[in-house]
């Protein structure tokens, strides 16, 4: 049985219809009329124990709303959801013991307390045996390099430090599932790298199931073996990143440096861009093998260097969304 299962999840939000014109504010206040916005529209997927899944989509696609239904924060309008056999919104407190949650924008820690005190409170709330708690704390302090700021009040931590503290607080009671909502937003390169490494380790050594939403495709490239893409509240794609690239962007690119500027025309490749001694060629590796293309270039043109470009996930996803709207 899958660990996380969503079937036909729907979430509608209601907000009062805004009036315009004279006394608009007062009429909005008095009016009972409401408008309905469907944020999630029939989302289904199942995630097995130990998977590390990227849940992607543009702003307003319904990513956070889905995560909030999986965590029990929101009650679904329709559809079913179970996490480790528990219906989250019905049994919030039972569900809470099975999951860890990190929201990048918002800390779950106690603002006025030193970080270590926050972690201790979390340990007690999740009824950790003392020795087990001490072991995990020591491990996380090591892995996340938290010793320098362990006794600092949370409100004084930098964003990167706070995020590490939040990760520790979400994982110290060893939940089976970890939800990460934009965990690297606003962090510098080194801090991002550290968090990615921690999540990768967690997934491989503890077998924690991770569901990650992010706008940073580097997070996805580094971590995810599976992607779920949503837009306008519907699932667009569910599969591996490689298969996504293959099906949406079969073309690859070859950058060719030339000793002197000249026209390049090769069978099976299309010139995308041609500038001062540099030509970019696009080709389909299924029809034209890269090796054949390169040897033909070297045979006919004054080539000094060639480089094969990896397909950029970000470009692929941009292309998909551009095609939809």
């Amino acid at each position, binding site marked *: 049985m899958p660990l996380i299962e969503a079937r036909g999840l729907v979430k509608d939000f209601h907000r009062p219809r805004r009036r315009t014109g004279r006394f608009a504010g007062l009429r909005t206040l008095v009016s009972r009329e409401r408008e309905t916005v469907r944020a999630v529209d029939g989302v289904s997927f199942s995630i097995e124990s130990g998977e590390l899944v990227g849940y992607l989509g543009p702003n307003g696609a319904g990513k956070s709303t889905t995560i*909030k239904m999986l965590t029990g924060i929101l009650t679904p309008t329709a559809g079913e959801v179970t996490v480790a056999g528990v219906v989250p919104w019905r049994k919030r407190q*039972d569900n809470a013991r099975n999951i860890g949650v990190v929201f990048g924008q918002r800390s779950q820690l106690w603002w006025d307390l030193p970080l270590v005190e926050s972690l201790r409170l979390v340990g007690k*709330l999740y009824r950790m045996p003392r020795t087990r708690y001490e072991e995990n704390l020591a491990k996380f302090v090591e892995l996340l390099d938290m010793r320098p700021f362990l006794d600092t009040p949370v409100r004084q931590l930098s964003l990167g430090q706070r995020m590490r503290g939040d990760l520790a607080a979400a994982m110290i009671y060893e939940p089976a599932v970890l939800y990460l909502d934009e965990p690297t937003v606003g962090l510098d390169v080194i801090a991002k790298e550290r968090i990615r490494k921690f999540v990768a380790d967690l997934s491989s050594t503890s077998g924690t199931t991770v569901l990650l939403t992010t706008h940073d495709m580097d997070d996805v490239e580094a971590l995810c073996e599976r992607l779920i893409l949503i837009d306008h509240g519907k699932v667009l794609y569910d599969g591996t990143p490689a298969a996504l690239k293959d099906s949406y962007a079969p073309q690859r690119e070859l950058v060719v440096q030339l000793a002197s500027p000249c026209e390049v025309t090769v069978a099976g490749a299309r010139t995308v861009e041609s500038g001062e001694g540099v030509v970019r060629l696009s080709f389909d590796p299924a029809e034209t093998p890269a090796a054949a293309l390169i040897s033909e270039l070297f045979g006919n043109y004054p080539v000094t260097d060639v480089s094969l470009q990896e397909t950029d996930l970000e470009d692929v996803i941009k292309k998909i969304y551009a095609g939809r709207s």
Partner: protein
Amino acid sequence: MTGVRWQLRAALILLGGAVRGAVQYRADIVFTMIAGALYNGAGFATIWVVLDRFEVIAGWDIGDMALLYGMRLVAHGLWLVPFNQLDWFSDHVREGSFDRYLVRPASPLLQLLTTRIQFSPFGDLISGLVVLGAAMSAVDVDWGPLTVAYLVFALIGGALIEGGIQLALSSIAFRTLKADQVKLTVDSVFNLFGNYPARIFGTAGQLVLSVIPVVFVAYLPASVLLGRVDAAGLPAVVAWLSPLAGVVVATASYLVWRRMLLGYQSSGT
């Protein structure tokens, strides 16, 4: 794991955190307690100054008024000490920070109430006890086990009424994101009109104050204790049973809260 015993333990754990957080603002603690006490002092000073010149108001002398004022204020303090964090509730809903209470293994309401420790309500409670203590020796009541027990039940009942009403009003914010102004207005009605014999507000006034139900907090039980059952136009037995009103109001309010919680929209970002 979600039973009452666990909730109490969780409350103690969270309170421990709140206390440690609050100790950092020690100077503020004393100041806010004094401010709370002075605020209530000013309210009673008005009654005292008026009665210094006029002696009685609708047949209630300064001792009777002090009993009423003290009972109302103790009831107010009794609900405000544990429930003061409701003041920030609609902020939590509006900014979406209520989310954190829904992903931890303890009751969300209990987590909200143990977020921080506020000290001004202790000022209300202490000044209420002082006024009530002074009034108890001034009024013509035979304080035996029965009357004292009735007083205690009345105080708890009054606290449950005020707390219940404020909880139910707060839960409106799950839908509307805002309830502060309505809550403040209702709180003002309790704070202003709960301290006076309801008779002075005429028939219409008494009716409104019975429905809200301000008169049940202190006025009806105080009149029972003073032996002048005056049920604001209601049957006398209602006055006697007024402490029970708190249980009814609080239970109904908690059910409303639970129902409204399902509509939480987790706005913000």
